[in-house]
Every structure is written in structure tokens, then in C-alpha cells.
């Protein structure tokens, strides 16, 4: 897979169009790695000059900050900003809404000013520019897809339409869950919940969300966040609905529509 790092670009005296911020989930989580690869396949297919930081990338600090550990967050943030500014980075795209949110909203007052996009918006722009050609959209014919709003994309940054526009490229029925857009129900991972046991309660949040997914009778639930993806996948398993519902990222679905990925419905 063709991927160049920022260091390699710099060594050749070149500047990429955009920096792809992969994020921790996208780098290490096996499921999220697939999302990363799908997104890169789309970028490479369109010959977009992009770079990654590779081993120079660190966690953006979100899980620490939301848990209350501002020290750890700022230590990572200031290191990241030093690296990003060192390369003179102007434009960043992230496949994780948590990375996107923190880079876009919280890095500026620490000295990190960039144009930051989430991949939903980035892909929508490519679609609007007519650069994305759907060759295999019919794979989705007759399928129902429901989109799960990520809190950090939706309410936190009011991006509701871009991911839906991406999904509209597929020849499928887009159906909405009971709670969607501004009323979208959290997957349960945010605020660093991903990294600890739940507090005592009646049920897990991802189970409540999957119940809404199941109500739509959709075969695919699309997410735009690797953490939502994990929570939804766990929820589907807990409900024993693996046969009926599959969880995919919008990038994976769009890549499949372009014939860059094969989607297995079984």
C-alpha cells in the first residue's frame, strides 16, 4: 500500500496536499485499521498527494482531556503541534471525529492552527468536485443503510449532512433511526468511557443504540468514527444480530462503491 510520511515528503523537498491524521484507533485497532486502509485506497485511487506522520504521530490527547487529565492532554497536544508546525502543515483530514474535534477546536489556542476536516466532509468535497466515480454502487441495491451520528461530528461540530451525502452515492435505501442528527444517541464510548468499565446501570449504552438500529431493519449501520464502530460491533454481537446487521465506516462503503473494496454481507 502506497503511503508516504511527512518526513519522506520533506526529505524530497515536497509538500503534500493534505496530511492524513490516522489516530490511535486507526493505527492500532484491527477493525479500525481496515477503515484507514479503505480511506487510503480512495486517496490513492484519486492520486491525491497525502502524507501521514507515521511514527511521529501521537495520540491527540482526547481520552485524557475528557477524563479530566489536562496535563497528559496538553503534553501530547504541544508535542503534536511542535511536529505539525515543524512541517508547516496547513491542511489535515482525520477519520476519527475525536481527533478532528480536538485538532480543529482545541489546538488553536495552544498554537496549532490548521484547516482540519473530518473524512466525511473531505469525501463530500471530492464527490461535489465530481472526482469520485461510483462503479459498483449496485452492490448495495435493495439494502437498507442507517447512519449513526457520532456525537463529536454531530452535536459537537454540527456535521450531519456530509456523511449522509456520502452514503447517498450508494444505490441503497437510507433509513433513519428513532434518534438521529441533533438527537442522535451516543454509542457510549465518548468521554473516555471507551477505556473503562461502565458505571452501574440497567443496560449498556451501545445496547440501547443497537436496539434502535434493529428497529430500522437496516442490513448496514454506517458510522464515521472508529470508536462508534467498536461499540456498535460489540452491541450487534451482544444482541446476536451479526447475521442481520453489519457495521461499516462510510469510507469503507464508499470504497466498495468504487470497486476498491469487497463488502461481505454474510
Amino acid at each position, binding site marked *: 500500500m502506497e503511503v508516504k510520511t511527512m518526513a519522506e515528503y520533506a526529505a524530497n523537498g515536497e509538500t503534500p496536499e493534505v496530511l492524513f491524521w490516522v489516530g490511535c484507533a486507526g493505527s492500532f485497532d484491527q477493525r479500525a485499521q481496515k477503515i484507514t486502509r479503505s480511506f487510503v485506497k480512495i486517496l490513492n485511487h484519486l492520486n491525491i498527494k497525502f502524507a501521514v506522520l507515521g511514527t511521529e*504521530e501521537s495520540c491527540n490527547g482526547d481520552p485524557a482531556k*475528557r477524563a*479530566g487529565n*489536562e496535563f497528559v492532554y496538553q503534553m501530547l497536544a*504541544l508535542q503534536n503541534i511542535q511536529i505539525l508546525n515543524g512541517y508547516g502543515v496547513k491542511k489535515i483530514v482525520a477519520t476519527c471525529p475525536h481527533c478532528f474535534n480536538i485538532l480543529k*477546536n482545541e489546538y488553536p489556542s495552544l498554537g496549532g492552527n490548521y484547516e482540519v476536516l473530518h473524512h466525511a466532509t473531505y469525501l463530500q468535497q471530492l464527490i461535489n468536485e465530481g472526482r469520485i466515480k461510483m462503479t459498483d454502487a449496485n452492490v448495495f441495491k435493495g439494502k437498507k443503510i442507517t447512519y449513526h451520528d457520532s*456525537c463529536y461530528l454531530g*452535536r459537537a461540530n454540527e456535521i450531519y449532512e456530509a456523511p449522509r451525502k456520502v452514503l447517498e452515492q450508494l444505490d441503497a435505501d437510507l433509513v433513519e433511526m428513532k434518534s438521529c442528527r441533533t438527537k442522535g444517541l*451516543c454509542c457510549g464510548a465518548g468521554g473516555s468511557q471507551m477505556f*473503562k468499565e461502565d458505571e452501574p446501570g440497567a443496560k449498556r449504552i451501545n445496547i440501547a443504540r443497537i436496539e434502535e438500529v434493529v428497529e430500522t431493519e437496516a442490513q448496514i449501520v454506517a458510522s464515521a468514527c472508529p470508536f462508534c464502530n467498536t461499540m456498535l460491533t460489540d452491541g450487534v454481537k451482544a444482541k446476536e444480530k451479526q447475521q442481520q446487521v453489519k457495521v461499516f465506516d462510510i469510507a469503507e462503503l464508499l470504497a466498495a462503491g468504487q470497486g476498491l473494496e469487497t463488502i461481505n454481507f454474510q
Partner: protein
Amino acid sequence: MMVILQTVLFIVLTAAAGYFAFKGYYRVYKNIMLGNKRESYTDQPKLRLNNMLLVALGQKKMFKNITPAILHVFIYVGFTITQIELIEIFIDGITGHHRILYHAVENIAFLRGLYVFTISFIEVLSLFVLVATIAFLTRRWILKVPRLNKPELKGWPIKDATIILLAELYLLACIFSMNTGDMALHDGMYGFLVSGKLVPLLSGFNDTTLHLIERLGWWGHILGVFGFLVYLPYSKHLHILLAFPNTYFSRLNPKGYISNVPEITREINLMMNPDSAAAAPEAPAEPVKFGAKDVFDLSWKNLLDAYSCTECGRCSAACPANLTGKKLSPRKIMMDTRDRLEEVGRSIEANKGVWNDDGKSLIENGYISVEELRACTTCNACVEECPIMISPLEIIIELRRNLIMEESNAPAEWTGMFANMENNGAPWQFSQQDRLNWKNG
């Protein structure tokens, strides 16, 4: 004689109500000002004014939920427009006249028509208020709507809500007995729309009784208004006033933004670049406290939020943690903040303006528990839902910061996660050198 007595009584009562109301509102103001003033929330005045007009005056966010929004508008508009009648009541009270405005314009057809229209309009609105008030009481006590029957409302909060609704019914009864008594007494001379229809109800009474009914309504109404004014700063109903400053001073950043603590930025910059120590401004003499343990550590805006909250519970009804049976309720965060602030305020008042540490704080001590704080997913559903732009999330984050950075109180998994993030730049135990391994998959 009777008239002079009434005038004197009116002026004395007005002064007393004014005094006690001022005391109540000033106390609220002083309590809010106990919060830190690091941020002023005064940038972009145009946008702020716009928020206030749309969200507070225009009730924009209420209309996400149409039925309660309409009922709420009935009471809101009814309550506001009724105050026009109060102008005349007030002048009458001070001068000893009766319906001074009517008599001033009774020979000018157009203005008399306007007067009669205004009072009739108020009467019609009052009927709408009646409908809404009964609907609200029904919702609370008969239908038992879930968000209005949560544990945090037990005791005073539900009493407070009911007192206000009953007070509305009382005020309506006063307005109609005043107008209907007047209409019956003057053979329908005023021509008010609704009370005109009610006159037959009083057909058996003589003039003395009718006059008494009119007077009881008049005095009952103005006393009710005075009582309301004095009661308001002790009630959740303060939102009718505070919704305006609260929306004006609301946060303008995207909801995903959480402030960066500047003291920490300075310290880390010194760590990363020790040479800058000489150039760095003097560290503050007082040791910096991180996050909030008590109301003093919250911002004045957080405290204004707490006083503005009317405990409607839209936040908690949307909270994923609350929906799945966790202890966290964003409404309770606001109520606890206000209760603690009131406790602190009372103690300061009792000590003649000096705060003596009572050994308690906003965390635990019967207020916000660690378990509640731990359950938040920072999803912003509560912030999104609040009709007057309150942020329970900001308080939760400030309290979490105190737990982690001052008390080192974190679940073991989080402690491990922090260590991973510090050592290998990821929340999991993976080596930073493996960051590009995904491309080999």
C-alpha cells in the same frame, strides 16, 4: 377615608415587596459572583444579542418539542401581556383612582376601543394560560411524565413547581373576579369580552358584595404579583428572568470545544523548553488549583447556569447515561450546584460576608457523586437539549479535572490509560514505532 387607607396600604406594600425582592435578587447576584471571572463572555455582542432574542425571547429551542412549546408559549405570552394591566393597577393603587386609564380615554372612541380591546385580549390570553396551567398540572400529577418524576425532584423541587402552577390559577381567579365584579357593578359599561360572559354568575349579589368581589380580585392580584416577585429568587422559576442574561452570555464555541487550562500550558512549555523559564512571566503567588472542587472554582457563568435552570429535565431525558439507568442526571448536576451555592451563600451571610470553610464541597457531601461524574460520555445531548443554553457538561469536566489532577482519583483503567498515553503516545499499550503497521494489513 377607605380610599386613603387603601392608598397608604398600597404604597407600604409596594415598598415592602420592593425591599424583599431586591434583597432576594441581590443575594442571587452576589452568589453568582462567587464564581471565578476568568472569562467575561462579552465578545461578539451582536451574535450574543441574536442568541438572546432567538432563544430566550423567541423560544427557538423550545420548539424542538411542539406540544410543551405551545403550552409554554401560552403561559409566557399570557404572563407577559397581562403585565400591561398591571400599569393601570399600579397607578390606581398609588393615586386612589379606579381604572384611571379607562376614564382618561372614555370620551375618545378610538382610545376607549383600544383600552377595551387590550383588556379583552388579556382576558382571552388568560383563558389560554388556564388551559396550559391545567395541562401542566395534569402532566406532572396525573400523567406523571417521566422527566417530571425523577428522584432528584423529590421534596422541594416538585413542591416549588406545583406552588407556581397553583399561583397561576390564583392569579387568573383574581383577574376574572376583578373584571367580572367591575362589569357587574357598572352594568357591563366596560364591555370586556370574557368577563362580560361571566357576569350572570354574579347576578344574585348586591352592589356591596360586587364591590367586595372586585376589590378582593384587585388586591388579590397585586398581592399575588408582589408575592411572585419576592418568591422568584428562591424558586426554579427564576428562569423567566435569567433566561435572558443566560442566553446572552452563553458559550459561542462549537459544543465540542473544552477550554485549555492556561496554567498547564505554561508549565508544560517550561518543561519542554527550560530556556524559556527566564522569559516566562512570574508564576502566580497562590498555588493554582486545577478543576473545580467547589462552587468558587466554577465560573460565574456556570453559577448563572445553575440559577437559570428550571428543572425541566430535557437534558436528563436525552442523557445516554441516564437513559440506561446510570446515576448521572445532568439536571441534578445543575440542581446540586445551585443548592451548594445557596448553602455557601447562606453561610457567608451568617458570617457577615466572610467565608469559613465548612469542610464540605460540591463533590460528594450529598451533592454530586464521583459515580455520577464518571458516567458522562461528554456527548453534548444535555447541552443540545437545554432550551436556555445551559451547559451541565462544563461543570462535569471541571469536577473531573479536580478528581484527576488534585485528588488522583481515577479508576484503575484510566490510570493505566494515562500512563500509556504518556509513555507510548496512545491509550493502549502499543509501541509508537508500530504506528504504520496498518499499511501492511
